[in-house]
């Protein structure tokens, strides 16, 4: 019941987001039709605007947009005029999702054990080394990590491709470049979660019953400790699946991430709208999934 309500609530929310995005976009200075080469006559510019209904009042344009949207039509990109927004998303999203999914797995595979280990060996050298490492991965931005990885593994060692997206090998460096930050973040969250869980009463109770330390940590503490990670993984997943401007740009990956930035600077209004809605749907959907996971992980959480 709760989840059905949540899904129903998402519809007006998406409307509000679309309205806000539409208004903000039209308030921003600059138009999609400005260009270095000015048309030979003002008439041409008028024709261009008429063709895309930019000669109508903004509210009417919004109504038109909603109407098209109701028919599943996101419109034509104003920058890449031979492509529809749906086309562009359909081409780029699978690529970004693959990269994002790989980076997510990478972050989990390295982040969770690292967080667990640093918490279990709190105060030991593992803790200090691990914490330093995770701190570094969180602090160094991907536009530094990515070129450094390319320099070491592609240019100096000739082990991996420098860029492009045409073989499984070419996926490795972008996955690491994108996933490192999240791995660090997850490791930090996991560590905090573990430390909190280990101090909680039910662990003390279990320990006093004589449970072995290892099974105590692995079976009982982890389930509580992982909750912050689960909370974080919803928005993180949305972030990862929609691609990254920097990583896609550096590795020349045909994903959707570059469009999030470029569509805005090109004032490609239809594209920006499509992406805003896509992102909103992903965030809402994944948060719902996170809440659902909560009910399964934490017996204290129940939704009515």
């Amino acid at each position, binding site marked *: 019941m709760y989840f059905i309500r949540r899904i129903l609530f998402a519809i007006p929310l998406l409307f509000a987001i679309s309205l806000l995005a539409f208004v903000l976009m039209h308030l921003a200075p600059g*138009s999609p039709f400005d260009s270095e080469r000015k048309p030979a006559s003002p008439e*041409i510019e008028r*024709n261009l605007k008429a063709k895309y209904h930019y000669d109508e009042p903004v509210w009417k344009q919004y109504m038109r947009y909603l109407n098209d949207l109701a028919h599943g039509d996101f419109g034509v990109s104003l920058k890449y005029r*031979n492509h529809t927004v749906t086309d562009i998303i359909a081409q780029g999203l699978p690529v970004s999702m693959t990269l994002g999914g*790989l980076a997510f*797995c990478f972050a989990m595979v390295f982040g969770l054990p690292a967080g667990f280990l640093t918490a279990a060996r709190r105060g030991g050298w593992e803790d200090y080394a691990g914490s330093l490492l995770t701190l570094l991965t969180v602090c160094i931005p991907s536009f530094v990590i990515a070129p450094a990885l390319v320099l070491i593994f592609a240019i100096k060692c000739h082990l991996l491709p420098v860029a492009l997206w045409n073989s*499984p090998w070419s996926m490795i460096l972008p996955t690491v470049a994108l996933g490192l930050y999240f791995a660090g973040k997850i490791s930090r969250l996991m560590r905090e979660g573990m430390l909190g869980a280990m101090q909680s009463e039910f662990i003390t109770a279990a320990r006093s019953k004589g449970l072995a330390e290892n*099974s105590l940590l692995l079976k009982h503490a982890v389930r509580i400790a992982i909750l912050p990670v689960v909370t974080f993984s919803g928005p993180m997943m949305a972030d990862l699946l929609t691609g990254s401007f920097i990583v896609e740009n550096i590795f*020349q990956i*045909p994903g959707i991430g570059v469009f999030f930035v470029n569509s805005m600077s090109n004032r490609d209004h239809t594209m920006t709208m499509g992406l805003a809605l896509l992102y909103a749907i992903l965030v809402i959907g994944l948060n719902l999934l996170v809440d659902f996971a909560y009910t399964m992980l934490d017996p204290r959480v129940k939704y009515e």
Partner: protein
Amino acid sequence: MLISKRARQFICQARFLFLSCGALLLCHLFSGCIRPEPPADITIINNIEPESLDPAIIVAQADMRVVEGLFDGLTRLDPKDASAIPGLAERWDISSDGTIYTFHLRTNLMWSTGEPLTSADVVYSWIRALDPKTAARYAGQLYYLKNAEEFNTGKITNAALVGVSAPDPFTVRAELKSPTAFFLDLCAFATLAVVPRQTIEKYGDHWLSARPLPVSGAYELAAWRLNDKVRLKKNPYYWDATNTQSEIIDLLPVSSPNTALNLYERGEADIVWDKELIPSELVDVLLQRPDFHSFTYLGTYFFRFNVTRKPFDDPRVRKALAMAVDKQRIVKKITRAGETTTTHLVPGGTQNYTSPEGVGYDPETARKLLAEAGYPDGKGFPRFEYLFNAASGGGKIHENIAIELQQMWRDELGITMVVRQVETQVFWGMQSRLDYSLSKSSWIGDYNDANTFLGMFVTGEGNNETGWGKPEYDSLIRAANVETDLKRREKLFQQAETILVHDEVPIVPLYFYVGINYFDTNRISGIWANLLDHHPLRSIKKTKVTP
């Protein structure tokens, strides 16, 4: 110890979730994301993703480099010197007054689908580019035809009145408003290229996604994936197919100079052909290498004054600012690719034309002029803004030049300029609305003639964007463009340019661009340096297989 039922359920579900995630990922990997394709013969890095591949729509140089391979015009450009040579038309007659061109098409012309290509296709393509509904930005390239401007701006609606017709399937008759010395060059320009009528009428704006896509050029469009690649495949029906040198060409839309260089160095790309695709920090070092080629071409970097704003309405002020600029410092310190500084707008080497000198570096006179204009030692001179956008590929060229100018004007004239960077789309809008005081500018010639530069500053012309206009200048340009005697025409243009860069100075030319491309001449042939930076795909080939 008992694991609770709930926990067991959870573990079960988690396992399922994990496995399904994994399966989903694998599906992705093996479905659409990575397509095994035969390798291309030639891979070229072509800068930004094409906005469009529709000849009537495109305006960017990168787009034109692709479209040139897909759609041919009546003429095409020679790969060596970029002069107009026969294309779809094998010969032409020009009437004695220079206003009527009769083009004789080749009789073996075919679309890539095997259907015949006739003069009606040429007429359709030109009318389509002029049709207000097409909203082609470059429609002005056809305004030299009789009634073309009137049709494009909606003053007349009957396309039959436009000066292009097809008296028979192999003849195109073009009637011009007045003699136009560069009309044959224009016939090779993308806007005038020949496009497939039936496909366009059937698919509308999405006609380029039609398969098979009928093309008139040397290459067919085999694939076009955004931000991934454009793949071209040799068109066997092209009239000159025997001279098409490579079977498959990939054009990659890489706009990051570092990525372009890395791909080239690792052999993933054979050719990188855009001056913006060389990392600016390395430009002087890389240009020492034998596979990096720099050449002059028809492009000028300059800045505009908004002459409708005080104090820039005073030519003395404009001249003073121009004279205080040490252009050598800009090319030596900032651009560093061997650019030549200039005082005039039209680049050296332009066909049938030599520019007069404009105002040079002379800080002494600059101070005198500023004092005459009422600002001795810069006293009382208002603070003003210099507007620019971010260079593509994240370069800092415009910013660095702005800062250099700021320093020169402060040191030489004692006046304060404020740098202001805005987003590119905002920049174009502000420039055309004259919402600026000074603005960074550049112009790349569309064809090899002085008019592509000087025609811009006619009063009210769309690309003027300075608010400046002089009837005397306008009439000189008009007279030059109807003049058939090349020497007299040059004289008229020189008088006009003197007004522009010596007397009135609404713009200050800084330097001429240097074109840069990189490829190994031992492995790649068919690319020649020329003034238009024009390198037809059909003549490029690999001479040696990679060792």
